[in-house]
């Protein structure tokens, strides 16, 4: 094996440890790519390996850091790759400091331990972001087998108040309206002679679901239960995206997709940095609108917003962002667990700003269990209007 091949394999191992999906197929492709180019040109080597090994834009920065570190350290072995810049790799984005940690771990030949690895003090750039923001991590007790079975049973009863959507795909069905010409002809050739027309009907399926869940201090009491709900719903149907927000927005869809609820929650708790802090609903919704709405609200998505509507920013800019969100999705459902009294009056500025822009408002008076949550979501919508 050549030194280059050994180096590429070593590099691939490091990337794998840092969390990129780099299988043997990719290693072979990377070697092929390096054979096709002039490997004395460091820039071209970088882009070539990038094209082969990176699969999504979000991985680019991680790859860049790993590349710079690795090909500097190993420049003795791979003589063809020059080492002009011996400087430390610089972060283009100061908020990407956790990446450095991942790279460190990957190079240190040890597996990341998962939770409890978070440093107590965060970099200054983040901590000084806002006085209202408190960064903390959260531990949830693990879920018992009984609870898991119960959650599964309850999920089967979840029936979001929105009809399934017709897709433009068909499946054979004797009651279908359309004639399935292909199936008919095949049947004719098979039996030899005329047969009844074969029919097909449209396939129906759930629309995509996007959940925006508030995890600020006022919602802390529900956090564990909500996360279990989100985990159950993510694993129950396809096309679910989950975002958590307090003072910032975190996409936890990948973390939630883990089958085991405890493992999934452990991953979520390490990736979310603003547990039980303040809420900036307007700002985080704005961030969602700008960065995510076009990516996850396609194909007629349904948005479920779980929040008590208490906003530290006093609702500033909230109405605009709610309106934008409302216009970008098929249906916007707001589930509000704050209300403990039957006579509900929208007093807080945040709530008043949000109410006119939701299709379906679900106040829950006593959200103490998964069962209550699912029941609240599954009841047919009342004719609730903002003025009521």
């Amino acid at each position, binding site marked *: 094996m050549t030194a280059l091949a050994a180096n590429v394999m070593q590099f691939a191992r490091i990337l794998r440890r840092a969390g990129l999906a780099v299988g043997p197929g990719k290693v072979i*492709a990377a070697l092929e790519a390096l054979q096709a180019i002039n490997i004395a040109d460091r*820039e071209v080597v970088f882009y070539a390996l990038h*094209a082969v090994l990176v699969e999504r834009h979000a991985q680019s920065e991680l790859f860049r850091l790993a590349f710079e570190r690795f090909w500097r350290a190993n420049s003795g072995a791979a003589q063809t790759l020059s080492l002009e810049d011996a400087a430390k790799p610089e972060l283009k984005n100061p908020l990407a400091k956790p990446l450095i940690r991942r790279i460190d771990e990957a190079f240190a030949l040890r597996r990341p331990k998962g939770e409890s690895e978070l440093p107590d003090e965060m970099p200054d750039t983040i901590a000084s972001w806002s006085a209202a923001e408190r960064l903390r991590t959260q531990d949830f007790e693990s879920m018992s087998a009984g609870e898991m079975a119960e959650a599964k049973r309850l999920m089967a009863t979840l029936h979001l108040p929105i009809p399934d959507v017709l897709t*433009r795909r068909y499946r054979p069905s004797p009651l279908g309206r359309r004639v399935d010409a292909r199936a008919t*002809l095949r049947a004719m050739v*098979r039996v030899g002679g005329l047969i009844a027309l074969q029919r097909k009907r449209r396939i129906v399926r759930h629309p995509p679901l996007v959940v925006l869940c508030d995890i600020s201090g006022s919602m802390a009491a529900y956090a564990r239960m909500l996360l279990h709900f989100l985990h159950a719903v993510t694993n129950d149907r396809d096309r679910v995206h989950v975002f958590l927000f307090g003072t910032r927005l975190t996409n936890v869809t990948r973390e939630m997709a883990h089958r085991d609820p405890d493992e999934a929650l452990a991953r979520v708790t390490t990736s979310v940095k603003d547990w039980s802090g303040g809420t900036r609903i307007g700002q985080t919704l704005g961030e969602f609108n700008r960065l995510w709405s076009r990516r996850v609200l396609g194909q007629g998505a349904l948005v479920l917003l779980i929040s008590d509507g208490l906003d530290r920013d006093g609702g500033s800019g909230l109405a605009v962002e709610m309106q934008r969100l409302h216009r970008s999705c098929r249906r916007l459902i707001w589930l509000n667990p704050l209300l403990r009294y039957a006579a509900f009056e929208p007093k807080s500025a945040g709530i008043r700003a949000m109410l006119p822009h939701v299709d379906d408002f679900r106040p829950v008076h006593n959200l103490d269990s998964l069962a209550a949550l699912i029941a609240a979501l599954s009841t047919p919508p009342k004719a609730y209007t903002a003025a009521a």
Partner: protein
Amino acid sequence: MIPRLLNLSPKSGNSVPDHTPVTLLPASVDDTAALLRRGGYVPDRALSTSLYLALTLKRPLFLEGEAGVGKTEVAKVLASTLGRDLVRLQCYEGLDIATAVYEWNYPRQMMAIRLAEAAGRGHDGALGRDIYSAEYLIQRPLLAALQPHRNGAPVLLIDELDRTDEPFEAFLLEVLSDYQITIPEIGTMRAVEPPIVIVTSNRTREVHDALKRRCLYQWLDYPTAEREREILKARIPQAGDKLSAQVVAFVQMLRGLELFKPPGLAETLDWAQALMVLDASELDRATVEATLGVVLKYQDDISRVRGDITQRGVEQARKFAAQ
């Protein structure tokens, strides 16, 4: 099943005439960049590298990026500079095999059965084989792209893949990894010469990893000011240096504003064109405000930019262009 080489009934008259010069594939990264430049496309180093690799390693190239950064254009320019046919598949939700790959010609099959009956031939195995032959197959873009083309393998553009749903993506896996298509009634068909495949996505949803894994991945970003000026010069040379520099400076300013939809490169080109039509030789506040709709496509964004921001942007752009 043994894959067979695909050679369906020879098509006549629908490919480019014989004399179209066929350009050889580029031999280096710099060659690739030069090739694209000849077609009026100004690539950056990252794109030239991944495109060169895609051509050399015969792998599909997956281009992702915001709307209007020139993803589709790569395929078009590539086809025209290489002198290859361009086979385009525009994706949409519900795109199925019958519109994307192939369809049986049911009326003709029906007719064949009736004729066989009239001629006294009953339904036997021969008829079954007959009506499931290439003669009764209607080719759609994907199957057409695997056919031999007179001037070399075509460029297959699978545009806006994120608009389809997952079932279609799953179907593409076979086409993109092995350049073959399985038709149950006939068998597996493999392209003699694999087409040059460009897949684009606007990222309105995440495309599955299994599909990305088969491709080379390239993220196209908004161009830097310098490259954008170069592109503008290549595409709309009559706009002149001064106006081009001002337009680019203004658009770059807009991209820094955290708008709901920042303008893409396509909007820059449209805008320059629009300003040419209006005989504007440089930016001023009134003209910019009158033409903001060419650059920004959301009312929220337009009302935010109108007024002070426009005023300041115009001043900055002029100052910048004067340097």
